């Protein structure tokens, strides 16, 4: 056990799984880096450094640099997966999914069902998500609803270094396609992470903070934000339960419903546009199966229905921020 960053935790998971299972390979743009260049090969390790050092340890047959061809990257991964490998493909920013979405949702995700249960597609797509990075409209999106919607995909959103490692190991050992969404703004977050390999099961929420007056459900980078607001509210004697579902699909419905059964009030904090997003999804779950416990309208704190703006002040206001989370919580608490 030692302090590691979210980035290191992910890198360690990859390394340990690659050591354990020779079928695990990593592919994507610049996951090694420097191929064909005059200088060092393999020294890049991904633009965010997540695959750093893997090329040196595992070489060119396990860490494959690809052209800028996301459809071919995903196809190469799924084709390798159905024939016996366990590829971990990197789509640098989730925003790029538009050029390869068919290979994800119509192909890899559907194989098992469409072929009557006869195909198995153990692959992971790692991708960086989220705003707050001043990346502009095409490098800052948080598209988990897009994947959560798709039958046949599993969708993982780690909110801290410990979860990042354990969930990635589970993802790699899973026999189905998994989208592993890494929050860019969390890459430098530190936390205790065991040195050995361990798994965190999918569909098991993390109760980040127990409370009894109101429930916050938050995903990925919104978890620490929701927690911060919970701590602020605690000073006013308001007890907030904070739930991080960890995976949006499968979803741990029970933990959410049990919490709302206790608190009667819910605010969902989610960094995606408001329509058909995870906030709506969780709210609709509770409006159906948790209706009897509800004492107030379900609050949602999402981004506005706009692309991500570039200017820092606009972007900060765009993201669910502490002020907006607190306002929503107080409105829900004030309801009677």
């Amino acid at each position: 056990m030692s302090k590691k960053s979210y980035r290191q935790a992910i890198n360690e998971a990859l390394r340990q799984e690659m050591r354990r299972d020779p079928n695990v390979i990593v592919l994507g743009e610049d996951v090694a880096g420097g191929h064909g260049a005059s200088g060092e090969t393999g020294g890049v390790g991904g633009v965010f450094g997540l695959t750093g050092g893997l090329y040196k340890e595992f070489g060119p047959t396990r860490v494959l640099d690809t052209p800028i061809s996301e459809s071919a990257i995903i196809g190469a991964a799924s084709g390798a997966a159905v024939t016996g490998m366990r590829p971990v493909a990197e789509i640098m920013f989730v925003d790029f999914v538009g050029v390869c979405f068919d290979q994800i949702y119509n192909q890899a995700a559907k194989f098992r069902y469409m072929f009557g249960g006869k195909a198995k597609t153990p692959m992971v797509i790692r991708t960086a998500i989220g705003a707050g990075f001043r990346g502009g409209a095409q490098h800052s999106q948080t598209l988990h609803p897009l994947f959560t919607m798709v039958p046949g995909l599993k969708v993982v959103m780690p909110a801290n270094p410990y979860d990042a490692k354990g969930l990635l190991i589970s993802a790699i050992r899973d026999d189905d396609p998994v989208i592993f969404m890494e929050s860019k703004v969390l890459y430098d977050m530190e936390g205790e992470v065991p040195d050995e390999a361990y798994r965190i099961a999918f569909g098991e929420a993390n109760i980040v903070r127990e409370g009894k007056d109101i429930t916050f459900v938050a995903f990925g980078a919104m978890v620490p934000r929701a927690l911060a607001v919970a701590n602020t509210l605690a000073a006013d004697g308001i007890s907030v339960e904070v739930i991080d579902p960890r995976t949006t699909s499968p979803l741990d419905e029970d933990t959410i419903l049990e919490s709302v059964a206790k608190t009667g009030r819910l605010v969902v904090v989610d960094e995606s546009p408001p329509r058909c997003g995870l906030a709506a999804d969780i709210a609709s779950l509770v409006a159906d199966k948790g209706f009897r416990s509800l004492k107030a309208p379900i609050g949602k704190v999402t981004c506005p229905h706009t692309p991500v703006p570039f200017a820092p002040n606009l972007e900060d206001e765009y993201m669910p921020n502490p002020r907006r989370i607190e306002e929503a919580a107080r409105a829900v608490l004030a309801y009677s």
Partner: protein
Amino acid sequence: MQLSRDDLKRAYRSMFTIRTFEERVVKEFAQGNIPGFAHVYLGQEASGVGVCFDLSNEDYIGSTHRGHGHCIAKGCDVHGMMLEIMGKQGGLCGGKGGSMHIADMSKGMLGANAIVGGSPPIAVGAALTQKLKKTGKVAVAFSGDGASNQGTTFEALNMAVVLKVPAIFIFENNGYGEHTAASYAVGGPSIAERARSFGMPAEVVDGSDFFAVREAMGRALERGRADEGPYALEIVCSRFTGHFVGDPQAYRLPEEVARARANDPLPRFRAGVTEAALLDHADLDAIEQEVLAEVEDAVSAGMAANRPDLSTLEKDVYVRY
């Protein structure tokens, strides 16, 4: 490369099975026994059979919406296929796939694919496995002329060159993508030339000549099995019927279709092997009788089979809500 009598019989059996199967699909479709829509492979038999002839179950193919012929050429069970196309229990995909989604991993058949351009990237991955595991096996992607315009296809060609995987790209140029001619929609001198521009050897092959296809495929296979990289074949062939069963084809003059039918790969094969005295007519007639019975049998089985059990609706999708 010389084929034995048994080989020749196997080739004819495979082509004639496709022919019979597809003619029956047309008929059963017209009678309402096949739901949805169906694209048949009539006229292109020598292509699929020539390509798959020397592949093993451990070599992979990825196919298209027009996939029945590829399935049969790759050895998929004709009964299981007919049941699948009819949407019945016992179909190769349990009735969940249908005509455009037949797959059989045990035969190295990665699936028909209803997305034009869907298979080439997947075949790159299957080929990558062979390279990394040093199996000496290959992966084949079937595409049409129309699919040669889809971005995913080009990406796959380039990726195969860059990763130097044993992928073989088959472009069955039957002159049409749906109701639009390749002469209009495919810019440039040829599909083969496109493949070459990505850095792989490519040939244009006469798709009504089983032997020509098989020989060209032999060169592609040699390169693939030696881990020397990808290869492409543009197989020029003809679609005897419309894009889908029921297509009235007003965009094609009857003479054009007649010309295509006059160049039928099956009689051509028959004439070739009988004139060279490699097989005699009786051999081939016997095969035809067997195949006709087999397909008849598959249809009867399909008609008799039940629909899949409703309990399978939510099976095999990982997460249930």
